[in-house]
């Protein structure tokens, strides 16, 4: 039993995946808010974005900005521990993560024209198709991260025990 680089990777991935799960939940909540916010449109996110607070504040833009802030970190974190696994030569784990990585890259490449980083365009986000897509995306990612979380846990213990 030794503390190898692979074990360190798994531990790190475990922690980061916990963060990603949190992001995914936030993502889901944000889109759910978007879908239902007409019940209480204004005051929901004033607290989150106090700078823009005024009576005509657009909830929508805020939520988009909020999500936008989270999307890049999420992608970076995921890419980061993919690289870690690559270095640790954990090919199976890397293989499992590749589809999501590819998806992230594709998603970022095909984002709407935007000056800042971000994926969500407030002018089209309310389109029912896009909204539904984003929600589904959130749920799928949540499921993926949860499974990955337990897989990393297993992987970490396995690496620790086997070596």
């Amino acid at each position, binding site marked *: 039993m030794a503390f190898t680089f692979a074990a360190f990777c798994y531990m790190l991935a475990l922690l980061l995946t916990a963060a990603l799960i949190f992001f995914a939940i936030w993502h889901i909540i944000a889109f759910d808010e978007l879908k239902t916010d007409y019940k209480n449109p204004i005051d929901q996110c004033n607290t989150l974005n106090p700078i823009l607070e005024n009576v005509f504040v657009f*909830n929508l*833009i805020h939520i988009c900005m909020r999500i936008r802030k989270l999307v890049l970190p999420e992608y970076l974190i995921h890419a980061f521990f993919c690289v870690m696994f690559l270095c640790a030569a954990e090919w199976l784990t890397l293989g499992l993560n590749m589809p999501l990585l590819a998806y992230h890259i594709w998603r970022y490449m095909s984002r709407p*024209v935007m*000056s800042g980083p971000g994926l969500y365009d407030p002018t089209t986000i*309310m389109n029912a198709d896009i909204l539904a897509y984003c929600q589904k995306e959130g749920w799928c990612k949540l499921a993926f991260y949860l499974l990955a979380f337990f897989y990393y846990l297993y992987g970490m213990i396995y690496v620790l025990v086997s070596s």
Partner: protein
Amino acid sequence: MQVPSGYGLYHQNYIAPSGHYSQGPGKMTSLPLDTQRDDYYSGLYTGSTQNVVTPSTVNQQPGAQQMYSRGPPAVVGSTPGSFRGAAASSASHLHTSASPPYSSFVNHYNSSALYSANSSVASQGFPSTCGHYAMSTVSNAVYPSVSYPSLPAGDPYGQMFTSQSTPPVRPVTDNSFSGQNTAISHPSPLPPPPSQQYHQQQSLSGYNTLSWSAPGLPSSAQDNLIRNHTGSLATTSNTPTNTVAGSLPCPVMQNVLPPKSSPTVSSSASARTPPTANRPVEPVASVAQPSEQLQQKGVDSSSTTSSASPMPNSYDALEGGSYPDMLSSSASSPAPDPAPESDPAPASAPASAPAAPQPSKMAKPFGYGYPTLQPGYQNATAPLNSGVQPSNPVYSGFQQYPQYPGMNQLSSSLGGLSLQSSPQPESLRPVNLTQERNILPMTPVWAPVPNLNLELRKLNCSPDSFRCTLTNIPQTQALLNKAKLPLGLLLHPFRDLTQLPVITSNTIVRCRSCRTYINPFVSFIDQRRWKCNLCYRVNDVPEEFMYNPLTRSYGEPHKRPEVQNSTVEFIASSDYMLRPPQPAVYLFVLDVSHNAVEAGYLTILCQSLLENLDKLPGDSRTRIGFMTFDSTIHFYNLQEGLSQPQMLIVSDIDDVFLPTPDSLLVNLYESKELIKDLLNALPNMFTNTRETHSALGPALQAAFKLMSPTGGRVSVFQTQLPSLGAGLLQSREDPNQRSSTKVVQHLGPATDFYKKLALDCSGQQTAVDLFLLSSQYSDLASLACMSKYSAGCIYYYPSFHYTHNPSQAEKLQKDLKRYLTRKIGFEAVMRIRCTKGLSMHTFHGNFFVRSTDLLSLANINPDAGFAVQLSIEESLTDTSLVCFQTALLYTSSKGERRIRVHTLCLPVVSSLADVYAGVDVQAAICLLANMAVDRSVSSSLSDARDALVNAVVDSLSAYGSTISNLQHSALIAPCSLKLFPLYVLALLKQKAFRTGTSTRLDDRVYAMCQIKSQPLVHLMKMIHPNLYRIDRLTDEGAVHVNDRVVPQPPLQKLSAEKLTRDGAFLMDCGSVFYIWIGKGCDNNFIEDVLGCPDFASIPQKMTHLPELDTLSSERARSFITWLRDSRPLSPILHVVKDESPAKTEFFQHLIEDRTEAAFSYYEFLLHIQQQICK
């Protein structure tokens, strides 16, 4: 009774297309009329030339057929009299006010009319406009004559109608307020068309009530309300239809018990007797006499036809279907009616009274429409025809009703056969597209009217404001998917209206759970409670609502104007404000770079502004400001007290600031002199400028800063690519790719600067309107974003130059006039609600979507249209009606907070055939066009084109599979969809979507912007222009508008085969008119109309018709003026000689012809057929 009338009607309908040129006013008619009649007879007696299916019907379905055809003649003997008698009695009621209930109703209506006349003047300054394109006769016709008929002078609806076609109107009003007597004894020319509608409505009513009242309306109180209400309508308006509506609830009962159609007939037979008993009641003998004669004629011919020819057979059957319903309803109505029941003797009179006008009216169209045709035709029928004819689809919509039971039954038992073997509605008549040569009707196509019972239809929203692609909403998403048709709404919510009830009250009654505004389609459970028609919640009626300001009576909530009109405007209280209503604020941001000065638009703009300064909508708080920019930004201090305008130059475009924030936007009235000085000076201030750069981005940022405290309207005039500061753009167009058939790139924005700016503006209630006047590529795709998301509007004048391109200059001038003076609403939001189970999917138009059903509109203008895609989330099985409501909350230019509410009600159907029967093909095309624009931006143009073709292929093949036993080789479409392939082809050849033809990127993008933001009426002309031959205009079928005779030439199909060399043709493309002069055109015409001696001397660039004092010139000009008046933006006129280079412009609109890059119509059909067979 019904039969003769129906027959007469049919006649109208049938003839109209061919009769258009022959319907003559005046004495010359005899000849044309003869031909008409011949036509008609041949249609009737020589067998069905048109409809091959019908004859077979006779054979296959002898039972049903006979039933129907036998019914009418038998009936005729007894009923006419009875009806007539009844008519008389009701007439006497009216005149003497003998019967208390009715007279009281009359009262109510009178006062209501007064009310609307006094308090509800929301007229917009474009009455004629509205009249014209509001003409969609069906609903409007119903409106004027039915809903407020009893008010002669002040009737606004009547006026509206007048403006569009005077002669028909007069009679209407006459009839309606002078009572049945007039209607019968000197039947006016008018009747046929209205009665046609009515008639349809009747046929429908029976069935519809069934579906309508079956689910809800538990208590009899409810029934009473309805009945009272309709009864009142019936009496007041004297129109036949109402009668049926009045007695509506009854057929429900009758029909419910015997579910099949045949029992209904029998019930009608028995029902016939009571009215007959009333026969002796007839007090006015003289009245009865003529009508009887008329009827007699009707009887004769109808019986002949029904037995002899197959053509009327289908018709007859339809009639028969409706007939029993109608009769039974009229007969049994007294029974459930509590008031009359208490005392039977008088009861029978009033009961049949409502029924009475029916025959009289019906007889008339028949008698008139047919044997004694002339008088009717001479004046009024033609114009009306033009209105009614188009409703062919409409018409049929209703026709199908009578035979609904039969049809449903059949379709269940025979499956696909049913369509063929049962007499089918006109809109379902299969049309073999490849064999039908003249698919385009002679007269404009009108919106189909939903299959609702009369009462609801009368209350329903005008199709000009609110249209749905399917007037029969499918019950489930699965059914919708099966039909392969788009479901969506097309809105024109802020349309200029000549008449609009405006309601001021402390409490605006809304549903407590879904916040729906109370509307005509809610149901009153009792006096104190109403049930929301969108979420079905039961709400209390507030105390204030119990008082009716119209009648000044208490306890009649169902007669409040909110419940009587589907389009109303509320004056909102402070609950509807987030801040005090803003004043009208206008800011003009003008490009003054070298390029702009060269183009010379400043002169035109300043001139227009000077002329219209006093007409700018606003109150005493109105503020105005000016900014100009080239590579720097110039502000103008117009503070009151200055001796002359002060120009402030800000050259730091990276960090724009406002030099004197308080004095840049000034009160229009306090600083008027300074403003005028500035406007006079502006055109000459920059004449020697050498500055070629344009810092549009920074100028917009400055404008945003300037406007953000108040909100308002920013009008941006730009003449080139912005080349400095934020938001600078590069040229992205490769001229060599203009006619590429492959990929069209750069349809989306290059930067999100303008979009973000627009969102910021929208957040501060500022709309940005863009006027792009450029001769080169200016990246409209990017620039347009500033207007798209801030709810502004976009105008584009390619190759604008004030002297080199006078037609564009003239267009700018006219557009500006409209733009500056039209109505405007500030800080608006629009919410669209729909019945539970339906949901909004995607919105199209210029706005920012704030949440799932809320559109944020910084400004709203009367020329803005919107489209909404719908999806069916839950099955609609437990409801028979769905409603849609748009509420537009805005601040008027006078600083009032107002809410304009439109409510549309549509029936739900469960069979595929019904879905097809109710297709509104124009609305569907417009929605598809919107979707295709989205697709071409998000995906690619070729994807969008494929999607359009697939839309046709899918829907036609889906329809084809429902009629399994028809030969598969033919391309069959239901009549309601017969224009679908043509319109799609037109879309594919439209600037926005065409490939292969050289199209500048900006032109293409502009066409897309227009598709997104134009209301349906204008968009349709853009997609499929109207072509008329104008060198042989006659007064036949002319309409009279404001003492002017406006000829009504028939529509020609858009094909070069129609362009004869010796003719002159007018093409109406919405924003442009072309007059094409053939080489061999008659010199008389050229001389009389164009003022040139011969063809060779016609100048190349001619944009006006000279005012010559000749008959043909007068006719041509009055026709063009009439077309012009019907739209807000005055189109420019181009005279195109056959050999001039400009003729390509004209020929590209001939969409049925083949071009190098695109199919001809016939080829397109074959292509579709191929795709279907694959």
